[in-house]
C-alpha cells in the first residue's frame, strides 16, 4: 500500500474484514479464516523482536522458579532473596512480555522442578503459562486489593522448598 498522498494508490484502512490480496472489504468465509490466521501469525511474530526471558535473581534452573509480572516485582524479589539466603534453591523470573511470550520462556520454565506464580488477580498468568506450555505451574493469587507482603511470598516459597 502506498503512503497517503500518493496518486493512484488511494485506499481505505478500517475495521472491516479485508481481502488478503487486494485489501478491499471481503465477506468471503475462507478469506476470513485466512486473514484470522494471518493476524495471529503477525502477533506471534512479535516474539522475534522482543528480548529473551532472563532470570531476575538466581539460577536458570533448579527446584523452584517464582514467576511474576507487573507490580509484584519488589515483593517477589525480596522474598526470593531471603529464601536464597536461607539456602533454598529458588529463582525469580519476571515476565514483561505477555502476548506473545518470549520465545525461550517455555524452555526456561521446564528447567525448574516447580513453578510458583504469585499475582494480584485470581490466576490469569498461571492459566496462560499452563495453556501455552503445559507446565504444572502453581497459582498463588491474592485478590484482597492489597499488595503482596514479602513475608507472604517467602512463606509460600518455604512450603515448597
Amino acid at each position: 500500500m502506498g503512503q497517503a498522498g500518493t496518486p493512484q494508490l488511494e485506499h481505505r484502512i478500517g475495521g472491516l474484514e479485508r481481502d488478503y490480496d487486494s485489501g478491499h472489504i471481503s465477506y468471503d468465509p475462507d478469506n476470513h479464516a485466512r486473514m484470522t490466521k494471518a493476524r495471529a501469525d503477525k502477533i506471534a511474530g512479535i516474539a522475534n523482536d522482543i528480548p529473551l526471558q532472563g532470570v531476575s535473581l538466581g539460577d536458570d534452573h533448579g527446584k523452584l522458579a517464582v514467576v511474576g509480572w507487573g507490580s509484584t516485582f519488589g515483593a517477589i524479589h525480596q522474598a526470593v532473596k531471603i529464601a536464597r539466603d536461607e539456602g533454598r534453591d529458588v529463582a525469580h523470573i519476571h515476565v514483561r512480555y505477555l502476548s506473545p511470550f518470549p520465545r525461550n520462556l517455555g524452555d526456561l520454565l521446564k528447567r525448574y522442578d516447580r513453578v510458583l506464580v504469585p499475582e494480584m488477580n485470581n490466576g490469569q498468568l498461571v492459566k496462560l503459562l499452563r495453556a501455552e506450555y503445559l507446565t504444572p505451574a502453581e497459582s498463588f493469587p491474592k485478590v484482597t486489593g492489597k499488595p503482596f507482603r514479602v513475608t507472604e511470598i517467602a512463606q509460600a516459597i518455604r512450603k515448597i522448598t
Partner: protein
Amino acid sequence: MTVTTITDAQLAPKDYASDQEVRWCPGCGDYAILKAVQKACADMGLVRERTVFVSGIGCAARFPYYMSTYGFHTVHGAPPRSLRASSSRTQSSTSG
C-alpha cells in the same frame, strides 16, 4: 510553510466513488449523503490523493470505503489522528 491549493476540476462526482459495493439498508439516507458528498468533492475539485475521509463506529461509518480517496474507518476519537494525516500527507481536505 506555504500552503498551496491544488484542485482537480476534471473530476466528476462518480470519479470520487470507489469500486466497492455500497451496503446500506434499502432506503437509508446515507445513500443520498454519499452522492451529495461525491458531488461536493467534484464541485470543489478536490484532489483524490490529497483527501482523506475519516469515520468512526456504525454503519454510516462505512462511508470512507465508498470514496476513491484515502480513508480511515476507525474508532471514536479518530479526528485528531486524521488531522495529523491530513497535515502531513494530504492537503487539508479532512472530513469526519
